[in-house]
């Protein structure tokens, strides 16, 4: 019978000898260290080190090709008194605030619309994400074309609808430029908000809405008292992430206006680029880049506190 071998007593076989490397890798701590090594090396080299370098640059007077000397807070003083910097601060704050509000509102509206069942829902959802998927710079180029003062299709439409008679210089008019840029940012961000909020909406059990409806709540009340509070956590995460990205935005403005006209759309990132790379004033560019840091810090702290709160539940 094939299984007599099992019942035959065998002396306990000694364990195979294991080499030192194998034994090391069996230890949870050493294995973890090894697994994290590539990541930590890359991130250390290309994030931590540059960050430290950036701080160092901001307290020197380095330029391209000229290693600088320590100058203390001179750069900070300089930008503090720099008019263009003031404009950039103002622009960036307005840009971020306005765009975020619109992205949230419109994204939420779209998410609520998508939360129904209708024919072609899957394909609609797929198409809606396109502005987010297609490379930003390329779709922004399309917008630049659409905004072109002479050939704008938007102007054409408004003209046909009788809304305007003279041209709108979307990107060339200092009063309009920031608005135009915000429009493009909102256009690109709404799908991200919508799809993420939709996912959040889908975790809310429909029974809660039904119970509220039975209790007599109307659509708006159901939204305000049932949907919104349950959506708040997801919303917070999305908004925090979006805020930091928008605050540090570069591509959009660079392609559309380059920061002009007359600094009307100058943001931190574009100004830093202009100074650091454009004119080679490395230290000053680095200083301006660092202006993003406080906002990042606030966002990170809020996120961490929030996560800690969620995890202790």
């Amino acid at each position, binding site marked *: 019978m094939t299984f007599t071998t099992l019942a035959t007593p065998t002396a306990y076989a000694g364990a195979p000898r294991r080499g030192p490397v194998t034994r090391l890798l069996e230890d949870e701590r050493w294995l973890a260290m090894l697994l994290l090594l590539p990541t930590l090396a890359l991130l250390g080299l290309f994030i931590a080190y540059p960050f430290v370098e950036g701080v160092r640059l901001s307290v020197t007077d380095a330029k391209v090709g000229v290693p600088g000397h320590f100058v203390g807070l001179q750069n900070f003083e300089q930008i503090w008194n720099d008019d263009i910097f003031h404009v950039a601060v103002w622009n960036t704050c307005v840009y971020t605030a306005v765009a975020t509000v619109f992205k949230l509102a419109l994204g939420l509206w779209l998410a609520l619309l998508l939360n129904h069942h209708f024919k072609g829902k899957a394909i609609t959802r797929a198409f809606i994400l396109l502005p987010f998927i297609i490379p930003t710079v390329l779709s922004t180029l399309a917008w630049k074309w659409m905004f072109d003062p002479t050939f704008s299709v938007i102007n054409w439409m408004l003209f046909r609808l009788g809304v305007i008679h003279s041209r709108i210089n979307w990107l060339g008019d200092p009063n309009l430029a920031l608005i135009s840029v915000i429009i493009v940012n909102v256009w690109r961000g*709404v799908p991200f908000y919508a799809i993420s909020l939709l996912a959040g909406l889908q975790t809310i059990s429909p029974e809660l809405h039904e119970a509220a409806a039975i209790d007599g709540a109307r659509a708006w009340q159901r939204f305000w008292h049932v949907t919104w509070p349950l959506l708040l956590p997801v919303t917070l995460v999305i908004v925090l992430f979006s805020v930091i990205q928008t605050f540090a935005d570069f591509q959009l403005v660079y392609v559309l206006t380059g920061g002009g006209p007359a600094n009307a759309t100058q943001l931190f990132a574009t100004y830093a680029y202009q100074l650091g790379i454009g004119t080679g004033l490395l230290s000053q560019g680095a200083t301006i880049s660092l202006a993003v840091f406080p906002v990042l810090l606030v966002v990170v702290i809020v996120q961490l506190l929030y996560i800690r709160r969620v995890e202790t539940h």
Partner: protein
Amino acid sequence: MVEGALWRRWVFFYVPLTSFIVLLLFPFYWMIVTTVRPDSELYRPWNAPNYAPFWTTHPTLVHIKDLLTETLFSTWMLNTMIISIAATAISLFCGLLAGYALSRLKFPFAGSLGTAIFITYLVPQTLLFIPLADVIRNFRLGDSPWALILTYPTFLIPFVTWLMMGYFKSIPKELEECARIDGATRWKAMVYIIFPIAVPGILSAGIFAFTLSWNEFLYALVFLSSPEQKTVPVGVTSELIRGDVFYWGELMAGALLGSIPVAFVYSFFVEHYVASLTGSVKG
């Protein structure tokens, strides 16, 4: 189905939804139309009576042809493809290992390291690009694809790690325990058991990483200077403008063709995209 009277459905649902769709997709439509429109039709002022935006009677491929033959566009496509694939590969490798360590192993400072990696995800490129340009120069990587292949993982790895952590957490730990009792080392249990099960997650992460690499602009702009080295986003925005003249036909053709690889990948893996997006949000 959408409830309510017909007029309600139209006002509150169909009209807004359609408006959203039209507004979100119009620029792409415009991109396509411009690409196939001959120059003669292209440059008509907005208030000219013969402005015909929504169709073209003489579709032409001349812009695409010019793009491919008279510019370095194909080179840029190749560059971008290589860089994106390489960066994605590196990020998947690092992110998989890191994600496994952080979610399945117990070791001191696990929490802090996880948080640290999470924080680097939030750090925007614009904070680092100036000193990073210096670092790249010092390592003599400037103006080569390596500058990007090594720096893109800085924003890809945290995302991949985060995504994979979520994925790994849903795999019961008994599987590894059983594998280890069966005779596998920790490493083998990770590679032969856990990773194969996590393949859908790896796919999602990889696709998203590929897209993020393809879309990146700032680092590519700052670290690359010679036209042959450029990636599609940088090449299209910088090289297709001669003097002060914008060759919109070619520009739109470049924009269109430059978007195709990503759109292509996207179309096959929509579900994975949505999963990555929502996974990263739900955290």
